[in-house]
Every structure is written in C-alpha cells, then in structure tokens.
C-alpha cells in the first residue's frame, strides 16, 4: 500500500510544485518507488520542472476518462529510475477530475508504488480538494508572510474536515509544515515572519525550512528538481526534509542570515 502525500498551501505561488518535484525525487533517490501527480489541470507545470514536457502523450484526465491506461500515461524520469510522473491535462476543465476517477487512479497506483505525491493547485476549490482528499500525510507549504500563513491555516482546517480520513473517522492526516522562500535577512529586518512565529501560529510540526534562493529559479528553468543540486542550500534543505519525512532526526539549517564560512560550518559556530 502506497503512502499518499499531498503538497498543498491554499495560497498560490508559494512553492508547491517546486516542493513536489524535489520531495518526490528525494524519496525515489532513496530507492522508494514514487509517482508524482500533477493535479493542476489547465496550468500544468510540474512536467516543466521535471523536464519531461516533451514526453507527455497522455495525461491524468485521459486516464480518468478511459482514453488511456495508466501505463501509457506514466512518464519514467530519466535521472532517477524509481520515479514516475503523471502529468496534468493542459486542455481540460478542472471538473474533469471526478472523485471516482481520482479514486480509481490512486487505488491502482497504490498497488505498485511506495509513495504517491500529489501536487495540489492553489486555492481551496475542486482541484485542491481532490488533491488532498486521499492523503495520508500533508506537506503544507507556507511562505513567511501573513497571508500565506492564513491560507495554510485554512487548508489545515479543510484537511481536518474534508479529507477521506476525516470523513471516515480514521486517524487524522499527518500534517507537516514546510516553510519555503525563507529569507533570514528579511526576517531579521522584521519584513517577514520568523520560523518561530509561523510555528507558533500554525501549531504543527516543522518538516523543514527552504531558503529563498536564486538556485531554485535556475534549477526549475533547466528542468531540474533543486534537490539534485546537492551543493546548494535549498537542495540540502529539501534533502533534510525528505529525511525527516522518513523519520530521521535532523537539525534545522539555513535559519540565520550570515553566510557561514567553511570552518564555522565544520565546527558548528
């Protein structure tokens, strides 16, 4: 049975797709057979970040509507061979994601995969509800600003009341806070909320803090999940988050502004 993880936020543009690409790559790189599903019908861009947009023949909606089999639609990643992508349709209506259709696809994927990562669209409408409905775990992607925190809070309420687990009275969806685009210098100047502020307000466990970084932009422009940039802060922060997701304890890094030199990093200054 696969573990189903939704990457969600409420607010748009906070880094859900970036996170879905890196987390799924990270899980797969550790040998877990992983599929990442793009639920953002009409605006797909997961395939761009995963650099497989030219290999899309069939999509999620084709499978739901019986126009293609799952095997025809799944795209195998070229870098990590335990990773698959199920792309969204760019041409269909959001309503094409029916509950039964999504259930059918997820049930079938569950038989052969270890992890199913669902990249949610922004908002709290149909597409976002479909993406979170079957989740066992939720990565709530939040930027350190008031409006993003508010939307994350909203999504947490929806996870508690509208997910399959809540409707069936099962153990609640496991919630993780992932703070992204974190800029310590701006936090220190009081222009952004701090990690502590966001944790205090949302009151869920912290999975990781991803620094704001030009490398993220460069990587996505090249179709490279940033976790594969092993040398970068953001890549390492995502790698830490994957480790924590799998139960490892890791200290949080990249929380302070001053760039630490090699020696101070070695000796934990």
């Amino acid at each position, binding site marked *: 049975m696969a573990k189903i993880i939704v990457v969600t936020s409420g607010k748009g543009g906070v880094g859900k797709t970036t996170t879905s690409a890196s987390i799924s790559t990270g899980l797969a790189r550790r040998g877990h057979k992983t599929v990442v599903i793009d639920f953002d019908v009409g605006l797909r861009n997961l395939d761009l970040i995963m650099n497989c947009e030219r290999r899309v023949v069939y999509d999620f909606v084709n499978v739901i509507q019986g126009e293609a089999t799952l095997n025809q639609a799944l795209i195998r990643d070229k870098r990590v061979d335990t990773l698959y992508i199920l792309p969204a349709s760019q041409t269909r209506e959001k309503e094409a994601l029916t509950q039964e259709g999504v259930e059918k696809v997820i049930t079938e994927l569950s038989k052969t995969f270890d992890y199913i990562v669902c990249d949610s669209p922004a908002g*709290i409408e149909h597409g976002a509800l479909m993406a979170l409905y079957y989740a066992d775990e939720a990565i709530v992607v939040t930027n350190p600003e008031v409006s993003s925190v*508010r*939307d994350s809070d909203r999504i947490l309420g929806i996870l508690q009341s509208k997910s399959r687990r809540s409707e069936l009275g099962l153990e609640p969806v496991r919630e993780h806070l992932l703070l992204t685009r974190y800029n310590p210098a701006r936090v220190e100047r009081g222009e952004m909320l701090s990690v502590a502020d966001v944790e205090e307000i949302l*009151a869920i466990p912290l999975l990781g803090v991803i620094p704001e970084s030009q490398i993220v932009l460069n990587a996505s422009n090249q179709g490279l999940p940033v976790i594969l940039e092993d040398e970068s802060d953001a890549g390492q922060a995502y790698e830490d988050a994957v480790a924590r997701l799998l139960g490892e304890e890791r200290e949080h890094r990249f929380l302070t502004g001053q760039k630490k030199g090699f020696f101070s990093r070695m000796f934990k200054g």
Partner: protein
Amino acid sequence: MTETATTGAQQSFQLKGATVPMTSLELLYFDSDSFEATLRDKIRQAPGFFRDVPLVISLEKYQGAANELDFFQMIGICRRHSIHVVGVRGGDDDHNRLARNASLALIPAGAVRERPAPEPDDKIVTEDVQTPASTPQAASPVAARIVTQPVRSGQQVYAPEGDLVILAPVQAGAEVLAAGNIHVYGPLRGRALAGVHGLETARVFCQSLEAELVSIAGHYKISEDLQDQGWKSAVQIQLRDNLLVVTPLDKA
C-alpha cells in the same frame, strides 16, 4: 399504522413543551431596500450571530400601512441571508391575516420577556421569546461542547445551547459561537460570540486576547477597540451596562 396512533401502536412523535430563545426584529415600517440594507449592515457587524437563527417579526411598533406589510418579501430577504422568519408578534387583525397568509405563526405578545435594546435606535433586538408550553418541563442542564483541535481559519464551531470550551487556538479567520460562555484555553485570534441568543451574563475567557471580534449578546468590539486592554494576555470579557469590559484573569 398511520391511523392507529391512539390505539396502542408506536406513535411517530410526542408533543413536548419547549422554550426556544429567538431574536425578534422590531419593525417600524417596511421598505424592501432599506430593510435589506439594514439587515446586511447588522449581519456584517456580527456574521455568526445571525446565521440560521429563527426570527420573530414584532409589529408592536409598526407605523406603516397594512398594505405595505409584505411578509413574502421579508421572508425572501431574510432567507437570502440565512435567517428564518418563523412568526409575528403583536399587530392588528389585518396584520395577523397577512401573516397567516404567509404561513407565519402568531406569537402572543404576552409570552415575551422584554430586554433592553443594545443601542437606542436598533431595530433588531435580541430577547427571549417563550413559546407557550403545553406540557412545561424543567430545563435540564446542557453540557458544554468541548473542542480539542485548533479551530482553523474558515471554520466555525457553534454551541447552540450551552457553553463552548476550546482546548486549542482559535485562529484568525475562525469563528466560535455559543449560547452561553466561551472558554478558549489557547490564543483567541478569530471571532468569539457568546450569548448569541441574548444571554447578557455570558462571558468570554481566553488565554491570550488577540481576537478579531468579541461579542456578548450582540454587543461587540472589534480588534482595534480591544487592543488597549489586556491585549495578548489572559482575560475575561463581560457585559456591564451595555459595554464590553475586559479584565485580566489574574485580577478576577
């Protein structure tokens, strides 16, 4: 089965006396536009307070003409705002005939305990309307509703009869309502409306006052008016002489 209700077969219902708190709207005249505008304004001030409440239209102070008294329009406007008109009180025979035509109950004026209006010229007054009881029963105590999870933005928790106890934060954008008191053992960042049926002795207790709005029996204060007293500390809020008073819990 249906005809044998009196002859030993299981009855499909029993009649019981009940005292139902209601909100009454004291109508001075009726004009659909200004009616809706006033209603909208009241709802905006305290949205949760009016949601799905039963409303009685009181005609005791009605000054308009009988032929302007369009109950169907009133019901329609209220419906649009999730308020349910259940009956009228007072008024003359013409008024009552119109009300009956609109399937509204006629509630005897004497059955009502008057309460002072929150503001002198408020047309919506909260009070207890006692429906006549056929078999009066002593009211049994209502257990508090207890919530252990955070109340998140966009969520609403309502205790329609007793107290509401929340053992977690009430987040900004969330709303908690109770007929009785509200206790929040965590920060109160959203909206809290106690005594929603008009109980003026209801109180709000919280571990940290950061609320967007606090209301007791329809008297409310918004965030900016709350900040100069007990903000971000443990307080209780109660109604004294129609004013919300905030006091620190350690001095209570």
